[in-house]
């Protein structure tokens, strides 16, 4: 699975995710990526793209949960992402998230996640573990 989230200088947000799914999946199996709110979600507060085991991401409505925690409880993107990932089954989920202010979270409970980010104030990262 691959995904990207972006916010421009005016706070407009967008997200996109694409995948081939699970190795050896049944023909016709749908994962989390096309289920808006599970693997992909964006509103005026944040944008999220998730990756991992689709069944786990759908059951735990990962992307929308992160947005809801920010929207209703006022958590930061890092707090919200950490809480949602901590409560998902171990070894099954990773996500990238960005807010309208340009704050980024890249959180996962798997061994690693291929990830990269950059912000206008000069922060840049490319990591795996």
């Amino acid at each position: 699975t691959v995904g990207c989230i972006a916010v421009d200088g005016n706070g407009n947000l967008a997200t996109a995710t694409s995948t081939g799914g699970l190795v050896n999946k049944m023909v016709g199996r749908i994962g989390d990526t096309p289920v808006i709110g599970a693997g992909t979600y964006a509103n005026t507060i944040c944008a999220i793209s998730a990756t991992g085991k689709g069944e786990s991401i759908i059951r735990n409505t990962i992307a929308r949960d992160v947005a809801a925690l920010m929207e209703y409880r006022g958590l930061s993107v890092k707090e919200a992402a950490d809480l949602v990932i901590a409560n998902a089954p171990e070894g099954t989920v990773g996500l990238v998230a960005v807010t309208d202010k340009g704050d980024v979270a890249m959180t996962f409970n798997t061994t690693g996640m291929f990830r990269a980010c950059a912000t206008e104030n000069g922060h840049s990262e490319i990591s795996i573990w």
Partner: protein
Amino acid sequence: MGWAIALHGGAGDIPVDLPNDKRAPREATLRRCLDLGVAALTANRSPLDVVELVVRELENCPHFNAGRGSVLTTDGTVEMEASIMDGTTKRCGAVSGLTTVVNPISLARIVMEKTPHIYLAFDGAEAFAREQGLETRDQSYFITEQNIERLKQAKEANRVQIDYTQPQPVKEQVPTSSEGDSQIG
């Protein structure tokens, strides 16, 4: 306030001793895609344009599980899926069951922008892609030797795999498929 971008290439059981010949091309693609996205943001492209063009680039890279390089179904075929969402308007598009569309994320965007729907799947999605003139290729374009081998290993172990799951030693007794989540080992 300021622009920001983040992208991922999948999460999973990525071994910390990943050989350089597997690590380097993936890191190089992440770097290239990040630079592409930053250049588009600094050129004042919309976030929707930015996420689409970055994901298209990742779909075209055979080292990631999307587009070219998609993992295989139990039949040895590809069935790709994608979605896109605009935070300002909450407009969104999703597709699944794609077998020939080179860039699924672009079809997802056209579903969002040119239909009253959110989600198209399988034959309907494939037919809509052709109607819209999106680039299509036959299945062989998407299938890599590495993913053929991964399917073989997963079949031998009688399980499904998320991105980067390492093959299990053959001697391990794996529960039958009816036991659900234990399938990822």
